[in-house]
């Protein structure tokens, strides 16, 4: 296998990380909705925290995407 093929396969493997981040983001918004359904008045406070958790979790998945981009396109 030459280096380029290995890099493309590696890019595909790195993209798995984005799918794993999806689990985290889904959990965060699921729990956020759970909290809002239980206590609708806390919506304002919870929304900012949910978005913060989403941003921090998503950043980790995006690291994987950046690695994938790097492997696929940086030559």
């Amino acid at each position: 296998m030459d280096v380029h093929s290995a890099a493309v396969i590696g890019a595909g493997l790195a993209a798995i990380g984005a799918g794993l981040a999806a689990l985290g983001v889904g959990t965060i918004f699921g729990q956020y909705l759970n909290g809002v359904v239980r206590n609708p008045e806390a919506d304002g406070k919870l929304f900012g925290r949910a978005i913060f958790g989403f941003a921090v979790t998503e950043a980790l998945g995006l690291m994987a995407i950046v690695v994938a981009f790097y492997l696929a396109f940086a030559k």
Partner: protein
Amino acid sequence: MANPMEQFKVETLQPLHAAGYDVSYTNSSAWMVVALLAIAIFLFVGTARPQLVPGRWQAAVEYMYGFVVKMMDENVGPEGRAYVPLVFSVFIFVLACNLLGLIPWIGAFTPTSHISVTLGLAVIVFATVCVVGLLKHGLHFFSLFWPKGVGPIMGSFVCFIEFLSFLSRPFTLAIRLFANMTAGHVVLKVFGTFVVALGSIGALPYVFGVLPLVANVALTALEVMIAVVQAYVFALLTSLYLNDAINLH
């Protein structure tokens, strides 16, 4: 088939050199100027003839400004009012760049899909946080890294991790925005090539091209939401970092 990464190419419009550096006027610079003009028009028209009962345009400006002020009040407290101009500028600039880049006209370009732009913004935020923290608390600022109620061994370990996470803040801030914008635009263009590929089936031309076109419309709506959410996230994290510097914890 066109490469979906082609849209991120920075093209030099007017070559310029200063002190040995290439500071050419590029399409990225041009789109940042367009974003600034759009912001200027939005804010000037909205505040030109202020009325007690605001019209639609004035209400839009007041809503955006009030949104940032409320976020700073909630996250930083009364001392955060001094930094509202910074956070508002960053928020509205990122928002304008994200949204203008989504309009599919010829030569469309999103400055925030380049890490040089987002890292520049993130370094402004990071430097402000460091300077504000050091000016306000002096060397006491470094107690930010020390967890409360922890023994010396565990404390020094956590302190090290906190310090590393503090140093990685500008990079995560920059990479989050850049990767979101890049990934979103790549997906839109990949679906755009699907429209051509499926629509050019010889036996039934145009029919199957409708499917990815519909998906592309839905994805554009999603991208508009992501553009707004990422601008909000950038401003929110800026306010949280400023809170660390102003109030320690």
